[in-house]
């Protein structure tokens, strides 16, 4: 990638444009693999997915298969899921429980701390010089968690997870730390593959309530959502550090018909104990939280059901890039442990009906993501010199929206969710990372 090309993207991004060629460009994709997925905090799973010592789950950090295990003292450790002998993928299943993991190729086995504990025919074939302690599984350099959310980072020198999440922690506390006992993941994440670029899907969740009224118009036709085309704009779009962002969507009145997102009153005292007044204020008024942690973790906390009996559900999703034009979608459904079973069941059904691979909202999103790919691969859209001025428009709110100084939460809050402030901030951070030489 030529330095002047990156410089040219920079100029465009500062003016509120994104050259269309960067969406699917293979060279950009390579830079992203190295400088974004190699250096930022990537979501691996939730602590509730690993119950007892010996529990394990397998995940992906872009192209690296990862094995997470809970050891005897209850610590969660993450390793490259690869035998250190010849590199064979060690564990091929999604989840389970066992004390040791043994490679099927030559039988090397590892304990829950990733230590090599068994070599077939050990000393007889290697003599005395082989030191097992040098051949343990390769740990993910950094593994940290916040509110039960486990992240990994391939960069030893990265800032801490808490520092990286920054202002997002305050909003995570509302979604994940509001009730006693925290959240639990139900079952396993749904997984499927879509024709999409990870930047566009991340942006769709983190930065784009504007699409709701058109993409999800069928919900209006079905009388499930309001007819006012501005209905998803009410509230605040909040730009956070490091390319993160959240939309705090309310209604035309600035309130929600369903206090605390339709959670039962029996839960309210817990919220009031676990959250501060500013957090409670926002949580009581919000209809939908939708946002993202850069680069590829998105979340959505919304309500489904008929008016008056709406049930909240929370989902986290990872857009795992498997090429410039393909993502593997992982969707975790989470729910407050403390909720009554009956509520959990209704919430789960609401989630399945709206989002997730078979959800009616989701289906129409996938169509648009695919269409972006289809129109971003040709010579005109890949024009790096921009002779055709082929840029995508991120101008919304650029000159006509000032931050709301009275918004009680951290971050820079704009008084409408129909604005491109988060998208522009994501692009700036994205560019900053891909222009930076990989750290040592």
């Amino acid at each position, binding site marked *: 990638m030529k330095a002047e090309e990156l410089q040219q993207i920079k100029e465009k991004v500062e003016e509120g444009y994104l050259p269309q060629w960067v969406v699917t460009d293979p060279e950009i994709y390579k830079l992203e693999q190295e400088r974004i997925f190699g250096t930022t905090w990537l979501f691996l799973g939730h602590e509730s997915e690993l119950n007892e010592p010996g529990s394990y789950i397998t995940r992906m950090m872009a192209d690296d298969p990862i094995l997470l295990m809970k050891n005897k003292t209850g610590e969660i450790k993450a390793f490259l899921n690869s035998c250190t002998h010849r590199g064979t993928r060690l564990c091929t299943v999604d989840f389970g429980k066992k004390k040791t993991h043994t490679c099927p190729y030559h039988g090397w086995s590892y304990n829950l701390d990733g230590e090599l504990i068994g070599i077939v025919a050990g000393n007889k074939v290697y003599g005395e010089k082989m030191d097992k302690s040098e051949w343990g599984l390769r740990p993910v350099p950094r593994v940290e968690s916040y509110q039960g959310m486990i992240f990994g980072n391939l960069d030893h020198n990265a800032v801490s997870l808490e520092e990286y999440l920054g202002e997002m922690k305050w909003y995570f506390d509302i979604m994940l730390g509001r009730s006693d006992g925290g959240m639990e993941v139900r*079952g396993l994440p749904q997984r499927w593959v879509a024709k999409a670029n990870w930047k566009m899907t991340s942006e769709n969740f983190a930065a784009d309530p504007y699409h709701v009224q058109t993409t999800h118009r069928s919900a209006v036709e079905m009388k499930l959502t309001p007819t006012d085309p501005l209905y998803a704009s009410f509230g605040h779009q909040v730009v956070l550090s490091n390319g993160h962002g959240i939309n705090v969507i309310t209604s035309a009145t600035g309130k929600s018909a369903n206090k605390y997102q339709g959670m039962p009153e029996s839960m309210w005292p817990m919220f009031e104990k676990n959250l501060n007044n500013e957090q409670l204020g926002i949580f009581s008024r919000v209809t939908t939280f939708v946002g993202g942690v850069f680069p590829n973790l998105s979340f959505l906390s919304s309500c489904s059901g008929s008016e008056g009996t709406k049930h909240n559900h929370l989902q986290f999703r990872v857009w795992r890039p498997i090429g410039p034009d393909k993502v593997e979608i992982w969707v975790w*459904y989470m729910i407050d442990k403390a909720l009554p079973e009956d509520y959990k069941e209704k919430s789960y059904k609401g989630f399945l009906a709206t989002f997730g691979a078979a959800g009616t909202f989701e289906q129409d999103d996938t169509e648009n993501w*695919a269409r972006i790919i289809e129109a971003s691969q040709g010579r005109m859209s890949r024009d790096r010199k921009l002779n055709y001025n082929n840029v995508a428009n991120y101008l919304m709110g650029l000159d006509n929206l000032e931050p709301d100084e009275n918004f009680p939460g951290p971050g820079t809050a704009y008084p409408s969710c129909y604005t491109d402030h988060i998208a522009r901030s994501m692009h700036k951070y994205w560019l900053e990372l891909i222009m930076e030489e990989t750290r040592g």
Partner: protein
Amino acid sequence: METHLHYEISQFLYKEAYLLDHRQYLDWLELLTEDIKYVMPLRVTVDNKTKSNFISEMSYFTDTKEDITMKVERLYTKSAWVDNPAPRQRHFISNVMIEPTIIADEYKVRSYFLFKRSRASEINTEELFGEREDIIRRENGEWKIAQRTVYPDQAVLTVMNISMFL
């Protein structure tokens, strides 16, 4: 009798596939009982070969007749973009096996499915495959589907969405 029953039920499943492939969803709805349970659990990969590799806690859908009806109605709105342009689809149904249940006129019917879909001018086609386990019932002389569990063979589905009925 056995052969005849097998023929009748197989023909019923082929007719169902025809209605779906030709987007005659309102006619298709008529084939479902009012109390239908229509479920697609997640296929997972587990270590123990003898244990189930489906989980019941999470599914792609767990629909009632009301849920299915709403999905059908949505596909008939002007702005269900996933269906506009309408993808071309084929359900290939085979390996039909029928067992009686303890209820008269109710049969447990297993079949294999291969679903293929082509969207607009897209060259790559999408597919899903697996097995279905149905409860098929005769109500007032008509065959109806009273229960369907769709077991996909993939832990990571290679379709962009599940807008289709399986």
